[in-house]
């Protein structure tokens, strides 16, 4: 398997905001020679039918990601703090609006 990055246009990840009020969401990737071309290609490829009002593109190599193992201890800090959840607290049923 060869590396396409050296052989052609670099890989970009594409994020699209579907409409106002929503986050940008990752929709896929594409190849482009530079940032500006990546944006116009992203428009032509991922928003041919009004799927977006805003696009972000970023070189794939610039993304830093957590490890691929979902059992990784990296996520341990969030696993053992049940007191962060509202259901941890017992409140009598007759207390209104809580």
């Amino acid at each position: 398997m060869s590396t396409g990055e050296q052989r052609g246009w670099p890989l970009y990840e594409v994020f699209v905001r579907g409409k106002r009020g929503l986050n940008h969401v990752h929709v896929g990737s594409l190849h482009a020679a530079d940032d500006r071309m990546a944006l116009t290609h992203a428009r032509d490829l991922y928003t041919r039918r009004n799927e977006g009002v805003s696009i972000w593109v970023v070189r794939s190599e610039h993304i830093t990601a957590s490890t691929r193992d979902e059992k990784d201890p990296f996520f341990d800090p969030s696993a053992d703090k049940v007191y962060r959840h509202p259901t941890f607290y017992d409140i009598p049923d007759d207390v209104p609006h809580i």
Partner: protein
Amino acid sequence: MTAGQAKPAEPAVADGLQERFDATIARDQRIEPRDWMPEGYRATLIRQIAQHAHSEIIGMQPEGEWITRAPSLRRKAILFAKVQDEAGHGLYLYSAAETLGADRADLTERLIEGRQKYSSIFNYPTLSFADVGVIGWFVDGAAICNQVPLCRSSYGPYARAMVRICKEESFHQRQGYELLMTMMRGTDAQREMVQDAVNRWWWPSLMMFGPPDDNSPNSARSMAWKIKRHSNDELRRRFVDMTVPQAEKLGVTLPDPELRWNEERGHHDFGTPDWDELTRVIQGDGPCNARRVERRRTAHEEGAWVREAALAHAAKQAARTARGAAA
């Protein structure tokens, strides 16, 4: 290492990687790019997604040949949009293949060197404008039968690409059927063109679902991995059941003397496609195989200077920006 791309997987032995993979599949959850996966699963997916992407790209040609000859500006604009969609579908799928570690330039090379296949259907010629309508109706209709279940395929990026593609295929099928309805309201000669196109495309469309189940070596494994959700014969039967009433409404005859409703089974009985023909077309001996691949090769080679010029321009702009920042 990029966000989308996967490292080559390590042996599954140590800490139950295979068990975790199997459990994810069993729970009907998705496998994502950076998960551990068996090499066979990865290789099967790369092969299937690449073939699917190549089909979309080669699929631009049979209809693209009619863009300049479409009979009205309306039909021209529609056909343009449809062919552009096919390009888009190819790119969504190449993007999905890249998340498995495949390289796009390498996939293109495999296609134009004949080392990877694409759907047999695109090796048939488009002889009249009615073919454009019949392709939309049959070929995109068959693609919908094939692809809707793939929206639940076990590999996340593939399934998500299929969701986008399926949304767009519906336009493809409907524009084809509407085109044929318009021709059927025209002259006798136009109705004959439609029937002729139906006669030529019916059997190749049934072959799109692949060989019969008892002769489809990879199917069982793909279904166990939930890459594929239904067997070839099951999908073919669905397509026939879906298409028969549409043909009646349109006023054309499907060219199969054995085609009839089977009350007992609740499905249509239909004849057997010529599997030898399918084998020949897949092995490169269809009416248009050489032309399709040659056209793709020419487009790729003639576009080389554009790709290089764009890179040179990007490098020049980057150098200017750097100098501007330093000054």
